[in-house]
């Protein structure tokens, strides 16, 4: 007997980058996620996913609403995108009810209320991200803020990244299946799984030795640490240097580009300008070295 774990994947104010990154999952592959038993005896029953589902219109909305009703407390809600709240949430709608559009804000609140747990997929859902950057014309907020303002308390896990690495998502889901919901100590202050976000990019960066030796790239294509070209690795929590992206092919700094801090609550506004050096104040790890050195 195979257990079915129902999942509703809701897209709100998003760009679909998080959905596409999921398609890039390598171990398990996205085919494994959609079709196979994700771990022995458990299959993810992806009830609603706007990018891949066969159904459209009322058929699709019907499955979403039936799942929330009939499998109350059993399904995992994944929200991909920020939640528009200005002017009653009118800047984003998903489907209709009684001939009227249902706002994304309403969907997030309704579906969260009856979910087993909520996963905020990506930086928009986790922290607001790009659509919530000033002047934030649509009043976009994170899922956490949307739930708090509706008084909903529900287990919530943030999987930030613009987009997140697919492993961070499937690894988190596999953790829920194998061990249950994460214990508080397994998440950091921003509700990110420590397993993936426990260390700074800077701590594992292969260009770290250049930093320690004071060898800095002055323009793109140079060897050296990318700190002076704007790298936000010293303040960004993620395991990109070890995990690498797209099936382990490469990662940002591997392509000679500075990290832009996309897993951080500060992204994008306080990690921009992306090609300007971080302000040298209170940098963890960084400061300890330079405190005893002359800045070169």
């Amino acid at each position, binding site marked *: 007997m195979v257990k079915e774990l129902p999942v509703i994947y809701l*897209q709100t*104010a*998003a*760009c*679909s980058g998080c*959905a*596409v*990154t999921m*398609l*890039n999952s390598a171990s398990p*592959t996205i*085919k494994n996620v959609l079709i*196979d038993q994700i771990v022995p005896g458990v*299959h993810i*029953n*992806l009830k*609603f996913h*706007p*990018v891949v*589902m*066969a*159904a*459209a*219109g009322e*058929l699709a*909305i019907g499955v979403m609403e039936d799942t929330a009703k009939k499998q109350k407390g059993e399904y995992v809600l994944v929200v991909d995108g920020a939640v528009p709240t200005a*002017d*009653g949430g*009118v*800047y*984003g*709608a*998903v489907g209709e009810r009684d001939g*009227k*559009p249902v706002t994304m804000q309403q969907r997030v609140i309704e579906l969260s209320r009856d979910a087993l747990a909520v996963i905020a997929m990506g930086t928009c859902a986790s922290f607001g991200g*790009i*659509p919530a950057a000033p*002047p*934030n*014309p*649509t009043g*976009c907020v994170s899922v956490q803020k949307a739930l708090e303002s509706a008084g909903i308390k529900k287990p919530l896990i943030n999987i930030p990244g*613009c*987009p997140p690495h697919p492993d961070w998502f499937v690894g988190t889901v596999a953790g829920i299946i194998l061990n249950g919901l994460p214990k508080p100590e397994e998440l950091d202050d921003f509700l990110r799984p420590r397993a993936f976000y426990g260390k700074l990019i800077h701590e594992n960066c292969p260009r770290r030795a250049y930093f320690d030796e004071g060898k800095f790239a002055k323009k*793109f*294509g140079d060897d050296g640490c990318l700190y002076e070209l704007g790298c936000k690795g010293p303040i960004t929590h993620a395991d990109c240097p070890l995990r690498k992206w*797209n*099936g382990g*092919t*490469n990662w940002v700094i*591997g*392509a*000679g*580009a*500075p990290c832009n801090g996309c897993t951080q609550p500060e992204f*994008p506004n306080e990690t*921009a*300008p*992306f*090609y300007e050096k971080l302000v040298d104040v209170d940098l963890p790890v960084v400061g300890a070295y330079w405190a005893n050195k002359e800045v070169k």
Partner: protein
Amino acid sequence: MGKIVIDPVTRIEGHLKIECVIENGAVKDARATGNLFRGLELILRGRDPRDAQVIAQRICGVCPQSHGIAATLNLDSAFGIADKIPDNGRIIRNLIHGAHVIQDHILHFYHLAALDYVNVADVAAYSGNDSQLNSVKDFIQRGALEPFMPRYEGDYRLPPEANQQCVAHYVKALEMRRIGHEAVSIFSGKVPHSVGVVPGGVTSVPTVDNIMAYIWKIKILQDFVNNVYIPDVLAVAKAYGDYAGIGVGCKNLLSYGMYDLDGKSPDYATRERLFKQGTIGADLRPGALDTSKITEQVKHSWYEDATSGLHPSSGDTRPQAGKSGAYSWSKAPRYDGKVYEVGPLARVAVTYAKGDPRMKEMVDGALKALNATPAALFSVLGRHLARALSAKYIVDNLEGWALSLKPGQPAYVEYELPEEASGMGIIEGSRGALGHWIEIKNKKIANYQAVVPTTWNVSPMDDKGQHGPIEQALIGAKVKDEKNPFEVVRIIRSFDPCIACAVHCVTPKGRDLGQYRVV
């Protein structure tokens, strides 16, 4: 008289609603409405201009490379270095964008469009030993069939063996598009939302091992495109031959061209490109591209009428929720005042009409295999065929480009940020003509405007009451069963709409939900 409302239209990017008025079994009127607004162009204002390519990529996670490169061309042009990018930089941009567009076309045909034509249920009767198909069979037997069911019923025409093979290819294509993204990330760090393309060139320097890794990933894609994708499109086209006359649309096509073959001209509209720049009408006669003829009209969009008809370089966005007669947040881009469709069909047809010998050979060969004339290109099948041929044309060029890189030589040129400047970046995204315009003041972004492929295709009526391309393609289509409007979604999906792109640019205030209904 009935009405069909499809909300959401799925298996596209983003949130789209389509309404069709049905009379005597056919679509009498059609309206397309986007359901999401984020305001990215406003978010760009006041920022460091170099950040435009980082933020603008986030307009769309399906086509971030296209936006990143359009933004970068825009910045190169504003910074006065459009003709100074080293060949290595130009070629690596082509390699990044090439692998990206190929995987995007594969994604569209197999994962977004095919479920409208292929009956997955036939795999239940599969009796062979293909492990992938047997795992699909296990899936069907377990009985929890989402996300592949429910669906609109009726009109699945392929024989069971063909359906089984197409499902096997659906699974294979998941792997192919992932490999396509791996090829992109060799030079761009990661996908989606790459980092490798910057004003001045690219961030990495080509190395022999990167070139070889790229080529061998591309060879896998080339094999798939030539031996699986193209034959599958032709097989579907044969079984659904009537769709060569369905979803015809406006018959005006516009292409900005893509893949710079040299970087000497600072004017992208005249630069030598693999896919040619230009326009074309029903007579298949090519016309030159004059970007000054582009305007955005708003009579039927929720913006003040006074802002209608502006060129994107001086574009203005003044929302007016609930404006009488308006029904969309998408503006209506027009070229020379006329309705133009953009996309793979446009760039293939323009390149074909301009006499490119290789394109002519490919298009004529495909039309011959289908026993069709060039007029059949203006259709649902024509769009799918053009998309496949677009993929083939690109994939057949990438190895040669990769081998022309000079390892160890620069791929980036330094520049000074100007105090004041303006720029334009035009390119073809997977879904068609993509233009970015920037105005810089005091070294900050003063104005940023993107006119994206889906804004053209999903546009509402314009000031003269001309319907947008998707609306025109829907009007007149027969609908057998209003509860299962598969004809309608097949027409919409042939355009591969991308709604996050189309509706990114507004600051609506005080929108009234009651006004949102279109009757």
